[in-house]
């Protein structure tokens, strides 16, 4: 056994990884604090992560071997234990530690929808409703969920079929699931845990439908957890991931709730049945809009960062085939094809981290305005949250899968950590709004703004560029010119405007030729989606450039970030060459220069690849990967972990029952 431990002893870093760290061109610690937004944040984050990871209740060690029932139970146990832990550590929901807790748990905890439940009451509920429900929820005297999606309806909310009919005689709403497709389906924590949920239903008063509204409905007894009368609920069965969450179904049959249970900050049904609206109807969707932005960091960007960390560290340890005869086998990270798979993902992870900061600023400002009942920024917030959620989730999902496949066979083992990162992140393409539909919503906003800008009217700040249509050609003369941000930002801007204006023109043409508006829209949707993506892509590149300009020029940070920014921008042009070549803005010869510059950058960033993922500062426990640990002792760990598999610890009943008769040729007795 000893010889297997040689050079792989835990604690000593694999020399193949150690050498990568010695040549870093920048200070890893400094970059980590930049990512965290300051040294104090880094300190708090590390303290939270350490406290969580030291506690055995929060361990994820056996996660890959557990069944759905075991995962669910562990998640509930963790959620309950977390309350104790927070109390013990003095962490508060409004304290600086709070945002890092979920990250430290890697999301492997129950009652996440409980928070959405509370948030929707805070945003949509009146002061009295907040005063009544929030303390109960805070103390976990009830467990909440958020029931919007139905079996037959998802992103298209107006199509929801659940009904809430107001009964003036008893001052109650009567909730019903009129048909099977109206059954609530998917809400987290609802299958087994929740006692209450916010149900979205079509409101009917005196026979008139007022559209979708939120209602607080109790579904399980607070005493023995049995289902309340008229309620049918359960778990929707195994999924690709989220085994720890009891996504549920819910059927309502003449369930009566008091009038006060409709969340009524913005609209109310008065005792006599009069419907009163205060402010914009759109506010009902604001919870959703903020959710889209708040999930980006933990659910979309962090998984890509983790996947990059695992794949890049493994690629520095894995040696395969020879680059030069006579030398030892090369690290696979030295192959250009491997760099081309992984390094653009790394650059994107940084680009998205910065665009996420941008979105948070945008939303903080917007949130304040809305609290003051100024709704003017809603369209822009809605369009931004939709477009960036779609673009980032789609890109990061693809990116994680690229990382998975870049690890060859071992990436396919659950022990690599990559399959579960992938199956988890890919749900983000669907939840909180299906991506294609979201992009079309962004496109609708852009088309409106484009028309306004063309007519010289004011438009929100993020789209003022639409007024700046100027035809022309890219002025770059050689491949180095493409490392000038002005050159590539201009190219992205030009392409975004071109795609939008040509789609707007086509829409116009169709309508003028007599095609009905909605039909014209459907005929242009493929292009509209493309235009919305191009807009988001442009803003992301521009924001990356502006962020790099503002970075401190110390410890090599700005320089390496500039390289990553260049790589992100040029990779985008290289991969979408047709869009940039289309009207000749970029010529064929310039495209060859871009390709050359792009490939050169791969070699430059290669040298700092491992330090760049180290800067994400994930602990081994949070990666939970046999391939991606800091010390790079990949094979030793893989072997040790495999031996822990339950398949190796118990005698398989299959041998006695089937294999033995098979081997002994007693098939006929089976």
């Amino acid at each position, binding site marked *: 056994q000893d*010889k*297997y431990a040689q050079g792989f002893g835990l604690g000593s870093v694999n020399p193949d990884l150690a050498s990568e760290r010695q040549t870093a061109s920048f200070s890893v610690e400094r970059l980590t604090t930049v990512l965290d937004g300051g040294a104090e944040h880094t300190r708090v984050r590390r303290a939270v992560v350490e406290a969580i990871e030291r506690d055995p209740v929060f361990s994820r060690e056996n996660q*890959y071997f557990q069944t759905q029932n075991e995962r669910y*139970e562990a998640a*509930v*146990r963790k959620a309950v234990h977390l309350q104790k832990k927070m109390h013990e550590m003095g962490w508060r929901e409004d304290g600086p530690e709070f945002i890092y807790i979920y990250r430290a748990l890697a999301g492997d905890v129950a009652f996440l929808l409980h928070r959405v439940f509370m948030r929707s009451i805070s945003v949509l509920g009146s002061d009295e409703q907040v005063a009544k429900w929030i303390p109960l929820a805070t103390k976990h*005297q009830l467990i909440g969920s958020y029931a919007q*999606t139905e079996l*037959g309806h998802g992103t*298209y909310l107006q*199509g929801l079929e659940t009904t809430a009919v107001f009964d003036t005689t008893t001052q109650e709403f009567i909730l019903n699931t009129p048909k099977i*497709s109206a059954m609530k389906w998917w809400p987290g924590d609802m*299958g087994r*845990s929740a006692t209450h949920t916010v149900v979205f239903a079509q409101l009917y008063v005196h026979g008139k439908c007022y559209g979708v509204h939120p209602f607080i409905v109790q579904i399980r007894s*607070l005493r023995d*957890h049995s289902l309340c009368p008229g309620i049918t609920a359960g*778990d929707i*069965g*195994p*999924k*690709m991931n989220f085994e720890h969450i009891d996504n549920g179904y819910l059927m309502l049959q003449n369930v009566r709730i008091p009038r006060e249970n409709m969340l009524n900050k913005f609209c109310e049904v008065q005792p006599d049945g009069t419907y009163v609206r205060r402010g914009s109807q759109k506010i009902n969707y604001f919870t959703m809009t903020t959710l889209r932005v708040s999930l980006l960091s933990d659910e979309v960007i962090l998984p890509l960062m983790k996947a990059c960390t695992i794949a890049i560290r493994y690629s520095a340890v894995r040696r395969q*085939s*020879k*680059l*030069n*005869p006579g030398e030892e*086998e090369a690290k696979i990270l030295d192959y*250009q*094809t491997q760099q081309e798979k992984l390094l653009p993902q790394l650059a994107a992870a940084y680009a998205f981290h910065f665009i996420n900061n941008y979105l948070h600023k945008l939303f903080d400002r917007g949130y304040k305005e809305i609290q003051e009942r100024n709704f003017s920024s809603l369209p822009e917030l809605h369009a931004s949250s939709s477009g960036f959620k779609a673009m980032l989730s789609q890109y990061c999902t693809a990116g994680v899968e690229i990382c998975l*496949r870049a690890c060859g*066979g071992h990436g*396919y083992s659950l022990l690599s950590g990559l399959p579960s990162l992938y199956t988890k992140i*890919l749900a983000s393409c*669907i939840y909180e709004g*299906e991506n294609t539909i979201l992009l079309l919503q962004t496109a609708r906003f852009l088309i409106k703004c484009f028309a306004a800008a063309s007519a010289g009217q004011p438009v929100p700040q993020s789209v003022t560029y639409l007024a700046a249509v100027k035809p022309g050609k890219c002025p770059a003369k050689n491949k180095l010119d493409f490392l000038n941000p002005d050159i590539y930002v201009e190219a992205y801007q030009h392409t975004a405007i071109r795609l939008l204006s040509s789609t707007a023109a086509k829409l116009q043409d169709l309508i003028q030729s007599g095609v009905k508006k909605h*039909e014209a829209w459907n005929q242009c949707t493929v*292009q509209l*989606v493309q235009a919305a993506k191009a807009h988001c892509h442009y803003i992301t590149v521009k924001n990356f450039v502006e962020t790099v300009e503002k970075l401190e020029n110390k410890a090599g940070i700005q320089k390496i970030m500039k390289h990553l920014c260049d790589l992100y921008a040029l990779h985008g042009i290289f991969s979408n060459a*047709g869009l940039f*070549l*289309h009207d000749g803005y970029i010529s064929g010869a310039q*495209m*060859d220069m871009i390709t050359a510059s792009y490939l050169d950058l791969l070699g430059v960033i290669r040298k700092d690849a491992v330090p760049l993922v180290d800067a994400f500062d994930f602990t081994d426990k949070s990666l939970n990967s046999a391939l991606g640990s800091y010390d790079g002792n990949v*094979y030793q760990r*893989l*072997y040790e*972990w*495999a*031996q822990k*598999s339950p*398949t*190796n610890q118990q005698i*398989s009943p*299959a*041998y006695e029952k*089937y*294999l033995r008769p*098979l*081997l002994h*040729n007693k098939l006929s007795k089976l």
Partner: protein
Amino acid sequence: VCNGDYRQSRGILFSSSVLSPEALVINDPDFQHEDLNFLSRSQRYEQAIRKSSLMVMKLREYGIADPEEIYWFKSFVHRGRPEPLDLHLGMFLPTLLTQATPEQQDRFFMPAWNLEIIGTYAQTEMGHGTHLRGLETTATYDPATQEFILNSPTVTSIKWWPGGLGKTSNHAIVLAQLYTQGQCKGLHAFIVPIRQLGTHEPLPGITVGDIGPKFGYDEMDNGYLKMDNFRIPRENMLMKYAQVEPDGTYVKPLSDKLTYGTMVFIRSLIVGDSARSLSRACTIAIRYSAVRHQSELKPGEPEPQILDYQTQQYKLFPLLATAYAFHFVGAYIKDTYRRISGDINEGDLSELPELHALTAGLKAFTSWTANAGIEECRMACGGHGYSRCSGIPDIYVTFTPSCTYEGENTVMMLQTARFLVKSYNQVAAGQRVSGMVSYLNDLSRQRIQPQHVAARTVSVRINDPVSLVEAYKARAARLVEAAAKNLQAELNHRKSKEDAWNRTSVDLVRASEVHCHYVIVKLFTAKLSEISNAAVRAVMTELCLLYTLYGISKNAGDFMQAGILTDAQITQVNQRVKELLAIIRPNAVALVDSFDFHDTHLGSVLGRYDGNVYENMFEWAKKSPLNKTEVHESFHKHLKPMQAKL
């Protein structure tokens, strides 16, 4: 509505109608079981073993012995999923047949045929996959005892991944570096007993087990194997070709190229598998999209089928066309292999290198495309696609390893590229090349013109498949040439050939991709003229055009940069793609029905033939393990105590 005759189009997918193993299996109560989604990994392994045992018995009972019939029977029993005896049937037995001496066949073949011996094929190691020469396991010959001593000298040399190795097999064919008379003679195959017959316990010197949970392949006991001075008799080396004589003298094999044949065969199976897996995913997504209603197209009208949205059609129909394209490509490779395998037996290996290079690339191209396509289909089913009841997660996790096994895809693309560069250099040296690369011959004529890019403009007619094949051909020629020239430029700058190759490898992979893309377009187009039924030919022509034009639209940069198509033509292509979507729409469901997957085989609630999706989702969910009791035990263990305390 449907103008394509269902039976007719089915007919072009399945050339020969063997006996119907499907009916035999589906009607057999012995092969029924609980939905696999609700079982743990150990339970799934047990189910698979149970069915495999039954399957072997029934194959004998029905007298099924033809390899292709066995393949179909197996595929229906296991519903297209892997099973623990795969490597025994697919690798262990065939390897004995092709590489064992008659004496070895006497000793091993019949016991293996009768399953007293269950074997696997142990090649991949923890630290080494596609690059075979890097394998570290050693087999050292000891003339004193006339034995080989097998060792796993490092942790990276532990055999890792072989199917059926962990728990099922009692023998393995082990690939190891042969050492005799102090010299390394390279990789050779050895028959190694690993478990005691009778007790099934690992033999002394053998450490064997399961490698743990994976993305998919739950029913397969992929295993590890570590050997410590484990001795086997000299006669256990497979010695039909290379031999070690009793005194340790090594006798070389005649030719290396023979192993190409097996690789071509297996890779052609993967191309077929790409087609089938993508077809299954398309069937599910398209049927579901016809059942799912959402949002509104026209104000005031009922919610339309989501299949009526242009964006949904744009996601799914190009994939449908791709599935058909890959079916034809898979059939072509299989036929070509059959045609030339007669020559191979007679020692004529002349056509093998090209076919070998081509299948490497096509294996990579089709498996990458299908892999991404399956995910697109799942995504197109929205939230319900994410549920295991959709069946698509299962198709994906079962299919995705084919991007890695039997040759990692990037490495495969580079093998094809090596052949392309070689062919290009031959042309540059004044020779002519034949086969699928013959378009390179034209380059030499054009080289005299200085502005090669502009000069190559072909007048492409975007509604004529044959003209479009020319456009793809021009693109392939341009990118193969560019890669070859970049490689040459690197060689002029640097000393090492390998370094230059590495610095050009992104270009080289692209060159292979566009070459494969051209081959597929060419084969699909050629297939059209073979279809006799006019209605079927019409609908296949639409699909072929969609496949071809969509490929241009998605890779517009290549076609514009090379001057093959103008901006205006690209705009036309984009427009034509959208028109084709509307044309194909009425036939979409019929086109997936033609794939003829039985509901049991499809394993999907969303993709049911009868379209009764929602009722059956509810029925399915009720069986979930979390629903076994009305109040989950977690309530009593955790929730209640917490509520009491707070």
